[in-house]
């Protein structure tokens, strides 16, 4: 049996479980929707100013941030589900099968990516009547970026979950990482409007470059240096995330 078949079996099981209890996926979507409806309108009058004249469409600035946020936060907390599975003995039961350790992780990550992409598409569809206008190719590339980002954060979340094996340790750890990542990524407001020191600080965060890249894609600047850097960083993050995840799954099975 190939790794792909095994991945599919794990994915299929996870997907069935998610569909049986879709509440969680819906709740995850409610957060960006609230940002969209309750925060988005505040940006409208200052769009030209915060985008430095690049666009006057508030949603071209704001939606890219929201879907990156969705990719990051939606995937970041999947580790909790893994701890529940660990407690129930499912991880142990998986590990006594001859299935590849890589497939045990990949199938779960794939489920997370599918859920995220569906959520992102829903978010985009809802944004159209609110005034979002963006080119197709840019949006599709952005969805790819969200998928890769989701895969990265899901793998990392699973790794941390497998190592800590405790919700009590995972929750503060994830929140501790999520908060600075969110603030320094320019998801809510572009970092360019901040003071220089804050901009320099945010330059350290690869996520900021990803958000900037997705914003460029939404404006249609597909081949701009911003969007290429965004792509570069997300691919790099994905390689790192999946490697760490696969290593942990292998190592944990000793």
């Amino acid at each position, binding site marked *: 049996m190939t790794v792909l078949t095994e991945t599919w*079996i794990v994915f299929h099981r996870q997907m069935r*479980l998610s569909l049986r209890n879709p509440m969680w996926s819906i709740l995850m979507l409610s957060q960006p929707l609230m940002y969209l409806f309750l925060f988005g309108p505040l940006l409208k009058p200052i769009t030209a100013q915060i985008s430095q004249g690049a666009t006057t469409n508030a949603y071209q600035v704001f939606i890219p941030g929201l879907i990156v946020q969705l990719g990051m936060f939606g995937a970041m907390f999947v580790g909790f589900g893994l701890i529940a599975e660990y407690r129930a003995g499912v991880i142990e039961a998986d590990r006594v099968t001859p299935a590849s350790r890589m497939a045990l992780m990949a199938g779960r990550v794939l489920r997370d990516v599918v859920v995220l992409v569906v959520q992102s598409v829903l978010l985009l569809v809802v944004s159209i009547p609110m005034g979002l206008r963006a080119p197709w190719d840019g949006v599709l590339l952005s969805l790819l970026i969200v998928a890769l980002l989701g895969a990265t954060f899901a793998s990392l979340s699973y790794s941390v979950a497998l190592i800590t094996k405790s919700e009590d340790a995972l929750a503060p750890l994830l929140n501790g990482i999520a908060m600075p990542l969110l603030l320094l990524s320019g998801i809510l407001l572009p970092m360019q409007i901040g003071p220089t020191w804050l901009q320099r600080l945010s330059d350290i965060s690869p996520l900021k470059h990803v958000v900037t890249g997705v914003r460029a894609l939404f404006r249609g600047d597909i081949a701009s240096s911003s969007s290429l850097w965004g792509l570069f960083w997300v691919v790099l993050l994905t390689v790192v995330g999946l490697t760490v995840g696969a290593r942990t799954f292998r190592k944990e099975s000793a």
Partner: protein
Amino acid sequence: MIEARGLVRTFKTKRGPVQAVQGVDLDVADGEIVGFLGPNGAGKTTTMRMLATLIKPTNGSATVAGCDLAADPVGVRRRIGYVPQSGSTLPEAVAGDEVVDHARLYGVSKAKAIADGQRLFEELDLPGLWRRQCKTLSGGQRRRLDIVMGLIHDPKLIFLDEPTTGLDPQARANLWQHIRGLRDRGATIFLTTHYLDEADALCDRILVIDHGRIVAAGTPEALKQQVSGDGVRLGLSDPAQAPAVARIVRELDGAVEIETDAGGVSFRIPRGGSVLPGLLRQVDAVGIELDGVEVHRPTLDDVFLTMTGRSLRDDGPGVPADEPEQQKEVVV
């Protein structure tokens, strides 16, 4: 079916390394039910997890179901079934789905998994529960579902970790029947337990483990014979006569551990049943009145006490619990 030599497992804990298993040799023949008996923290689960490829031995080697543990863990996994203590199904999932998905990870086709799974549900007394959510099953049903999960790829060797812990007496007796049934179908079974009655009732052979070492091995009968004889207790209506009775007992061939207390005299002697008639006549002859006589065959608890100097029920200090691996043991 299993041949292990010098298995050692050391865990890193905050207080330094702990040797949970300190050089275990064991052999299990085809078609046997072998019980791994020991108190909590003796190293039972750790040894079993090593043999089931879930943790790597720090030292030592083993051949399990014909495959080398270190060189071919995937080969071992294909041929064994492992029923962990913690269960193996998600409460929210549907029982039949969990079984089929598990089977497919072994490369079993979906159609065969469904057919075999439903047959096992019948055999293990789970009729009509195929479409039920796992969390709606009773403790005994959930345990039997775990066993179905462990059997779904028709393994030749089955590991059961504390199979009846947490079950009521009726469910335990029922599960024992099923475990014997597995052996009758030609499977080899290796189980851990800290229940003496379970080891006694179920196992062809018992390995007693304490502090990470095997301290005794043999059939339940042979182990019990290692304890010097049966326990005999003579109850007295008049406690003042205890010393006189003790004097008579001391004359008997092979009587040991003679103890007197307010209610009577206790001792151990080989073949207690055949010594008793003569003893009773002697006691009667000197005019001592007994108000009761008990003979009890040695139990595995007596064996354990003899081997280790403490009762199986004492969870003494020593090696920490069997699950240090569930602590923060692995660092990326």
